[in-house]
């Protein structure tokens, strides 16, 4: 019998959510999506790949010819968008929705992740764990909050990383995720997965060992900053902001296993964000996110149609919002720690208050690594 009961109080909102989630038990969500939407069109995928690489390289050329340093930051953000688009293509490849050729998908995925120096298989396997455990308080790998008692027990560095990347440094939240998922094979339970990660690390390190010295030789340390580090941070800014908004919301709790269900996590625990059309093009519909969680193998260009089909089958189930900075502000202002009393979030201030510390001292339960923000 589990000894941990969270949250301690079941509010009407929480009960409604759990009731709606449990109502999906036994449903075959994927059946709502027409089968023709599963078919990849490689040419359309390649258009996305080349468009993103062109944006990335074009922005670097722009940095080179920029008449004034004040243009660097916006150009790094453009390069970041290019690199983030490439990440989204690698994401397709990781789910094998880019083409039916698995080897080609893995090759292209690694090429798409080179601007980030991100080992493809590390990301892929960690991301699969996220899909299998979305918003599980014990098991999710991405943006999982910790309890106040766990936060207080962290070392100073983990605490600093957790606190900053859930507030003012949210735009760097995925840097630590890259470190864990890309370079720590021991995070993964399957031996073959760990070995694939090791091979991806070798490929990434070999590329970096050629690319970075060549870049520094040709452009100097300033070139390293202008053409690699600035864009790299820019990619993480897009990566962090997008994924945080998909998976952190004051209205969507992380659930313990007695409340969590796979169907519920797929259909009701992520948020879709509407962007301007051009931004959907360059981010390859990554923010049409619920349909992607329901059937990860659907190619990105079919996700809007898949979402419409899901909306017809399950009216009001998908959470869809317009992206605004106000929404981002709400998340970084208050969605800091798991609230053991009500099951949603409490801000950091609560970590020191009686209210938050009432809960589980002596039953930390969730790993210190959970304190580090993930995708």
């Amino acid at each position: 019998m589990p000894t941990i009961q969270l949250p301690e109080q079941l509010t009407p909102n929480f009960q409604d959510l759990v009731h709606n989630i449990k109502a999906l038990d036994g449903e075959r969500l994927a059946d709502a999506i027409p089968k023709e939407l599963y078919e990849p069109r490689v040419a359309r995928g390649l258009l996305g790949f080349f468009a993103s690489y062109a944006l990335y390289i074009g922005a670097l050329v722009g940095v080179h010819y920029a008449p004034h340093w004040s243009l660097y930051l916006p150009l790094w953000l453009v390069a970041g968008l290019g690199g983030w688009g490439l990440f989204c293509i690698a994401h397709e490849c990781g789910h094998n929705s880019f083409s039916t050729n698995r080897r080609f998908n893995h090759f292209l995925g690694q090429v798409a992740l080179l601007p980030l120096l991100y080992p493809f298989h590390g990301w892929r396997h960690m991301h699969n764990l996220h899909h299998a455990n979305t918003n599980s308080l014990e098991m999710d790998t991405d943006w999982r909050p910790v309890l106040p008692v766990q936060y207080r027990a962290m070392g100073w560095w983990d605490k600093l990383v957790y606190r900053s990347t859930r507030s003012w440094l949210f735009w760097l939240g995925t840097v630590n995720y890259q470190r864990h998922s890309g370079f720590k094979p021991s995070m993964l339970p399957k031996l073959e997965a760990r070995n694939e990660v090791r091979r991806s690390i070798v490929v990434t390190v070999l590329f970096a060992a050629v690319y970075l010295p060549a870049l520094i030789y040709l452009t100097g340390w300033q070139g390293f900053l202008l053409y690699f580090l600035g864009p790299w941070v820019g990619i993480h800014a897009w990566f962090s902001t997008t994924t945080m908004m998909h998976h952190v919301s004051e209205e969507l709790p992380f659930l313990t296993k007695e409340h969590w269900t796979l169907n519920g996590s797929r259909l009701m625990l992520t948020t879709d964000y509407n962007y301007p059309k051009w931004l959907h093009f360059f981010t390859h519909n990554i923010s049409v996110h619920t349909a992607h969680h329901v059937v990860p193998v659907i190619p990105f260009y079919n996700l809007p149609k898949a979402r419409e089909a899901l909306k017809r089958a399950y009216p009001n189930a998908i959470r869809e919002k317009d992206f605004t900075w106000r929404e981002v502000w709400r998340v970084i202002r208050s969605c800091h720690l798991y609230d053991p009393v009500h099951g949603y979030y409490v801000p950091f201030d609560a970590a020191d208050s009686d209210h938050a510390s009432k809960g589980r001292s002596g039953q930390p339960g969730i790993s210190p690594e959970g304190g580090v923000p993930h995708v």
Partner: protein
Amino acid sequence: MASFFSNLFNKVSFAEQQQNSGPVTEASLRQWLAQRLAKQLKVDVAVIDTGRTFESYGLDSIVAVQVAGDLEKVLEQRLSPALLFEHQNIDDLAAYLAGELALAETKA
């Protein structure tokens, strides 16, 4: 030629070798947990009582999370890091995991 490069790649990346340890059963899990606990406490495995609570052995949360992490690799599947808090002793935990494994096999 392909296997030469494959072997080279495995060597360069320090690939792990598969340990052939037979099928995972409730008994083998109980034994593994007892050995892991004995190693942690630096005692002989014979003195481990599989019915005694983890708490009474003085396991702290960091060790509990480490054990859950090691167990993931034995079972080759993701497990809750809170496992040793959710189950009181080795017998309970081994029975629970064996049940989960049987369930997973039925689904597969």
